[in-house]
């Protein structure tokens, strides 16, 4: 019965005031979890590409959620300048306007500015930890020697995936 009461309260609250931020923030949160998960499950892509794409998708939604919230909650404050009898209506409309501005302008702009430095930082950290692993391994194993007495040097496999992809414009689609 407690669950029923909770559902009832949720429905009443949505019925009284269904803020546009509720739906967009829930969608962004679910996208932030599901899209990287789907990307990582894709068996046709290279592991490094998958990691890169999943990280980027996750970061996009991490930026989107607070942006929707900030603009959705900040815009209705402008309604205070309106006549009192119009304030309720103006608050609802300004919140919707804030959400639209976030979706069309603010999120793509913030993603363009923030994602590349964040990705570089995360990938540089990963590279540093990887290079330490390689050094330890090379110290531990003795080099193989050919019949002529020369050592065989096997460089690590060349990666064809460039982690320093040029990111321009906004994140495009979900694919």
């Amino acid at each position, binding site marked *: 019965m407690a669950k029923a009461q909770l559902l009832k309260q949720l*429905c009443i609250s*949505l*019925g009284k005031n269904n803020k546009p931020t509720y739906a967009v923030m829930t969608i962004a949160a679910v*996208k932030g979890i599901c899209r990287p998960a789907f990307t990582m499950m894709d068996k046709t892509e290279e592991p490094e590409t998958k990691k890169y794409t999943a990280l980027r998708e996750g970061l996009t939604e991490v930026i989107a959620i607070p942006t929707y919230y900030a603009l959705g909650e900040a815009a209705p404050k402008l309604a205070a300048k309106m006549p009192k009898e119009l304030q309720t209506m103006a608050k609802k409309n300004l919140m919707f306007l804030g959400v639209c501005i976030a979706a069309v302008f603010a999120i*793509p702009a913030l993603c363009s500015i923030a994602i590349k430095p964040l990705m570089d930082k995360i990938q540089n950290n990963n590279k540093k930890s990887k290079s330490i692993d390689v050094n330890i391994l090379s110290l531990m194993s003795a080099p193989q020697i050919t019949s002529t007495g020369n050592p065989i040097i096997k460089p690590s496999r060349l990666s064809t995936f460039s982690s320093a992809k040029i990111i*321009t*414009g906004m994140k495009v*689609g979900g694919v």
Partner: protein
Amino acid sequence: MISAIQNVITSPAIASIAQNTNQALIVETTLKAIGRPGFILMDGDISKDTKKYAATKELLYQAICLLVYMTLVVPVFKRGAFKMAKNSKMFNKFDDAKALEKFKSADEVLNYHKLTERSPAEKQKAIKKDKYKSLHDDLLKNLTDTDKSEKYPLIKGVVELGNIVGSVLGLAILAPQVSHAIIHPALRFLRLEKKKEPEIMTENKLDIQI
């Protein structure tokens, strides 16, 4: 100019769109479908081909999202939530839920709610329209007799909850999967993308002996 802006900001029509999850998301996705490709095309830092490719891809993605949302999610979840609530024994135990009998469909709930936000004069004018003529007598009485009509928040909330659940499943899970299947063939059809050729593994060639 200022009064025009004030009229838009205080418009009851926009307020009813803002309070309706489906309509709000349809407007938002349409704006994204127009705005985002537009901004990509205006970007001066990338080549013409890249701009064309990225803008088309974004347009296709948003258009597919909109299509999936309007054809599948809106009717199924909005109507589904209303029918579920109507047939649910648990839900019908609540006193506020008894008014469910007065509504025939989820659309009727939303149309009625839209009218409750209007002024008495606007309500009188609107109820003469065909879509409101079939409203239950009690609902029509609510709209005509009182200045502040009963809004039945529980019933409106049920429909909105169904809309939110459907929107999340549709836009966050279903639409990206559908667009993943459609976008790349569509881009190849438009000659904006080439088919990937299988890579030849050359691992052994990289081993160098001194």
